[in-house]
């Protein structure tokens, strides 16, 4: 597929700037792990290690590290910092889990968001981290260990069939559904991402995304929160998935604030129209904040 991005010209403002931003490499970023240290001490550790870093204005404890390898230094060894792309800290902050709650991370590996959720909860309550890929779970395990997380329970299963049985059937207060996707938004990190893009793949993966989001809504208590996110621009994997679960009448979309510039979800795509509520979702484009691309929606479970 030569020009996947061209299909988004009708929905992206300033399309040429969008395309140009997609071609620029993305600086690496690290998040301070407050389970093991404070932001102040992490800064001091980074300075002592003579590392180049600059704060990301919109999120405390997040730093861009141009040209650095996050792994080869003492702050990393102590689990004070974790390499995590800037925009990928968004969904956990939108979910906003509280200490002591029960939270499900439905597609958890390699664990950047799992460990961020644990830190937001002061490492209390429980984060159930599920992934269907054992190899990727081993990466998650090494991240939770290095970052000193103790409130995580890891399950290896297809999220669509997630069982509450090991947890005595207790429903979740909040669920994060950061699904596998066509990853178009990561093109700045992985320039080859679009080489294997096909519409069949997008449509196939959208089926799995619907199944996972549906399971999360079922597994979350009435009044609880579910955040759905992807790193793709494709409405098939974003608004169309929300439209599908809204039809069930078991959830509604919520408004929320984001400290990044974003655009509302689109209500029309290639002749299809979606539930107007999908405008409450947010699209993050690379050219507005100099980040990767992202999509995030916040839902309340109503039944």
């Amino acid at each position, binding site marked *: 597929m030569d020009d996947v991005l061209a299909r988004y010209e009708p929905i992206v403002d300033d399309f040429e700037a969008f395309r140009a931003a997609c071609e620029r490499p993305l600086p690496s970023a690290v998040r301070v792990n407050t389970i093991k240290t404070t932001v102040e001490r992490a800064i001091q550790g980074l300075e002592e290690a003579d590392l180049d870093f600059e704060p990301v204005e919109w999120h405390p404890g997040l730093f861009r590290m141009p040209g650095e390898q996050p792994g080869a230094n003492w702050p990393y060894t102590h689990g004070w910092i974790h390499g995590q792309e800037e925009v990928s800290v968004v969904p956990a902050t939108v979910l906003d889990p509280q200490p002591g709650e029960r939270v499900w991370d439905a597609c958890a590996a390699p664990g950047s968001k799992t460990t961020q959720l644990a830190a937001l909860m002061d490492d209390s309550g429980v984060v159930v981290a599920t992934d269907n890929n054992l190899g990727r*779970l081993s990466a998650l395990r090494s991240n939770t260990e290095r970052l000193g997380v103790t*409130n995580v*329970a890891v399950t290896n299963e297809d999220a669509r069939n997630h069982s509450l049985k090991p947890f005595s059937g207790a429903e979740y207060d909040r669920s994060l559904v950061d699904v596998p996707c066509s990853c178009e938004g990561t093109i700045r990190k992985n320039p080859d991402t679009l080489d294997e893009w096909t519409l069949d793949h997008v449509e196939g993966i959208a089926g799995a995304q619907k199944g996972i989001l549906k399971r999360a809504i079922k597994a979350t208590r009435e009044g609880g929160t579910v955040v759905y996110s992807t790193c793709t621009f494709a409405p098939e994997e974003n608004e169309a998935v929300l439209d599908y679960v809204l039809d069930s009448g078991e959830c509604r979309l919520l408004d929320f604030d984001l400290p990044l510039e974003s655009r509302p979800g689109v209500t029309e795509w290639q002749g299809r129209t979606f539930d107007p509520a999908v405008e409450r979702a947010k699209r993050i484009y690379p050219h507005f904040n100099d980040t990767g691309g992202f999509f995030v929606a916040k839902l309340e479970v109503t039944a």
Partner: protein
Amino acid sequence: MSEDTREENVSHRFDRLPATESDREVDGRPTREAVLEFWEERFGIDSAVFEEYSFWERGNGKIWAFAGELETPVDIEALGMSFMRTRQEHWKPTTEAVQRFGPHATRNVIQLSRSEAEALLAGYSQELDWDGDWGYLIASHEIAGDSEPIGVGLYVHGELRSQIPKGRRREFGE
């Protein structure tokens, strides 16, 4: 409730440690009491630090610490943090447990210089002076204005042997 599933170790499953000897159903399984005593006696870490934690065994002598409570047994991939090994005569904390809870320790902590810390992290043994007990020590160094634990060193015969697992060893280079 369930059948006869609690009388031996099942390698893939997490079973909660019994509170005391009298609650024990599996031979050789350490008790919560003994685990707390170990950390208190060996490293001076008050058992109040672990009050909110439950301890679990999966596989013989592999103990995990979880920040909450669940009904035992639990058949999942991982539960909390891998915490210590109790199979051998001398119990051994994991690197992650020492990094996370080591800051509470008041004894058997060896302070390393930066170059000694780098050698430990790279996995090397090194000759060092140490007046205290032999055995497993918490190896720490000074960073960002305070002492911070790196991992476990085994001190014997005038030598500190790095216990950093292979996958976590690093050489920062020039």
